[in-house]
């Protein structure tokens, strides 16, 4: 099982009584639907979904997992219809492309009698899903800030590089700022670097020209952090205890943490493998003798040299 830090309450959402007796001789068909990967994190998710499919089907011969990825919300809606009409699925694991346009299609799947597991991005109507599995964006910001505070003292200066202006970015940023408040550490400025290496590089170059004294950088994301590190090295300001905190759990970053890199000493987890967790839990809802329905909020674990090995997947594209 994946490391499951069930920080959120395991609230039972419905009267869904799940027992092992349901698993009869006939096949349990579970559809898994998510966006076609167009960036590294999603490619990692795709990889983890494929790994989980192999592992679970080997473990339970009567379980059939059907993986479908879709390039846009309407294609995903059609894919959901096909999963019901063609495959007659017993359960659905879905990472919705967008909340709004996918809410009705998922509701239709539920009305066909299938159990619903929603991953990462919630639907815009509560109560549809039986199981919810997601990362924890505010916690990611908070854990990063807690680490920052252990390394910095009052009067030190940091800069923040943010992602694409979205709710996710705001949640991470606000939680980070709340946690930093009262620490005496100055946040000199924050700019959007769009979860992108090139933007991370350019924004950091400008921060370095603008602020002669920076002690640490919160880059929020591993891709941004790679750009930040290149800019720091170019300006020769990567020494003097400077450090960068990224986030997500990119394999290259985790590898360098394992190797004891000091410029990016830690990482904060927002794992693409959450899809595998969701598939595990969904299968468990057919196989376990305990109740499974509820909300699973994964921990934003601080990855350090000590625990990095358990988050390192060298074969994953992310």
């Amino acid at each position, binding site marked *: 099982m994946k490391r499951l830090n069930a920080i959120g309450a395991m609230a039972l959402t419905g009267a869904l009584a799940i027992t092992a007796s349901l698993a009869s001789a006939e096949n349990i068909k579970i559809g898994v639907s998510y966006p076609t990967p*167009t960036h*590294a994190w999603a490619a990692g998710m795709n990889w983890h979904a494929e790994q989980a499919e192999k592992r679970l089907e080997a473990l339970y011969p009567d379980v059939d997992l059907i993986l479908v990825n879709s390039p846009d919300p309407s294609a995903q809606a059609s894919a959901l219809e096909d999963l019901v009409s063609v495959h007659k699925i017993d359960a659905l694991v879905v990472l919705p492309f967008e909340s709004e346009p996918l809410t009705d299609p998922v509701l239709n799947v539920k009305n066909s009698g299938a159990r619903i597991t929603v991953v990462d991005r919630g639907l815009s109507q509560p109560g549809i899903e039986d199981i919810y599995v997601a990362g924890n964006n505010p916690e990611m910001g908070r854990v990063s800030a807690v680490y920052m505070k252990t390394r910095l003292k009052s009067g030190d200066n940091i800069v923040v590089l943010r992602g694409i202006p979205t709710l996710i970015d705001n949640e991470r940023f606000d939680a980070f700022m709340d946690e930093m408040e009262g620490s005496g550490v100055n946040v000199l400025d924050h700019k959007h670097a769009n979860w992108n290496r090139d933007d991370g590089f350019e924004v950091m*170059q400008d921060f370095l020209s603008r602020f002669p004294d920076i002690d640490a950088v919160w880059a929020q994301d591993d891709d941004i952090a790679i750009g930040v590190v290149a800019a720091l090295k170019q300006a020769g300001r990567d020494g003097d205890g400077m450090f960068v905190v990224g986030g997500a759990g990119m394999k290259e970053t985790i590898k360098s943490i394992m190797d004891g890199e000091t410029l990016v000493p830690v990482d904060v987890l927002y794992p693409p493998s959450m899809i595998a967790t969701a598939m595990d839990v969904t299968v468990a809802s057919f196989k376990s003798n305990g109740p499974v329905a509820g909300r699973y909020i994964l921990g934003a674990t601080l990855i350090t040299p000590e625990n990095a090995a358990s988050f390192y997947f060298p074969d994953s594209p992310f």
Partner: protein
Amino acid sequence: MTVLANSSLGKGKRMSFDIKTAGPAIALILLCIIGFLLNPAFLSEGNLTNLLTRSAFIGIIAVGATFVITAGGIDLSVGSMAAAIAGVMIIIMNSAVETLGPGLATVLLGCGCSIVLGIGAGWINGMLTTKGKIEAFIVTLGTMGIYRSLVTYFADGGTLSLDFAIRGTYRPVYYGSFLGLPIPVWVFIVVAVLGWFLLNRTAFGRYCTAIGSNEAVAKYSAIKVDRVKTMTYVIQGLCVSLATIIYVPRLGSASSSTGVLWELEAIAAVIIGGTVLKGGYGRIGGTILGALILTTIGNILNFTDLISNYLNGTMQGLIIIIAVWLQRGDWGKAKAKTN
């Protein structure tokens, strides 16, 4: 007839010289003054070097785009093309390390492949528009999607990273400098000078302008229209490959997010510089100023927290429109009329 028309056109140009050519320059100077007032560190040597180096990518691509647009075409595929070429370069260099070692030979092989791919991709765009008789907008919209998905496929949806051993050899191409100027700036200067010469001092440049103003007339004037138009796309492809060669050593990686919207930035730089979008009139000098303006806007926005981050796009849009209005506005025409 043509001689007459040309000379009167030249005269008109000289009359409104101040506004037409100085527009982008005035805009850039204004931006620099604003930048300096916001934060004197804007004019520090380090920041100016960063600015010029950063402009090099879009600038080099925009020089190529000036030819395409002057000849009445458009190329939307350049950003994706850069990403795909960067991806293939990285794959080739990584696989050549074992046989050629992490030295100069591998880097040269990568650069050579980049140039071949750039020219080839440009030639495909050109042939499809001319021989295939498909509108350039559609052809390059198609190739834009193809190249973008190819790089995603090569990278397995993730990121392609250059072997660390090669990075040491290749790194100076971006980070090194010669006579105080970074190498990318030198490449930019050389491309700009060659581009200016080609557009303004050769028969080929005049053919581009002629085709852009009136393709039918150009054809009747015995200009090999198809060949010249294809050549403009080849030049564009070559420029993209040069930009990619200096881009790859920066972060040593390529992914599906590489070069996103570069095509629009390049086109914007060309138009801000005074080239006419429907073709027939092109200015390399203006294009270079246009590229510098675009980079400077982003740079200034990073230098201040006066403006909400969410409004960055608004500021960029406003400045682009003002820069073009400076040279196209009615007040320019009115002045020409009174003369």
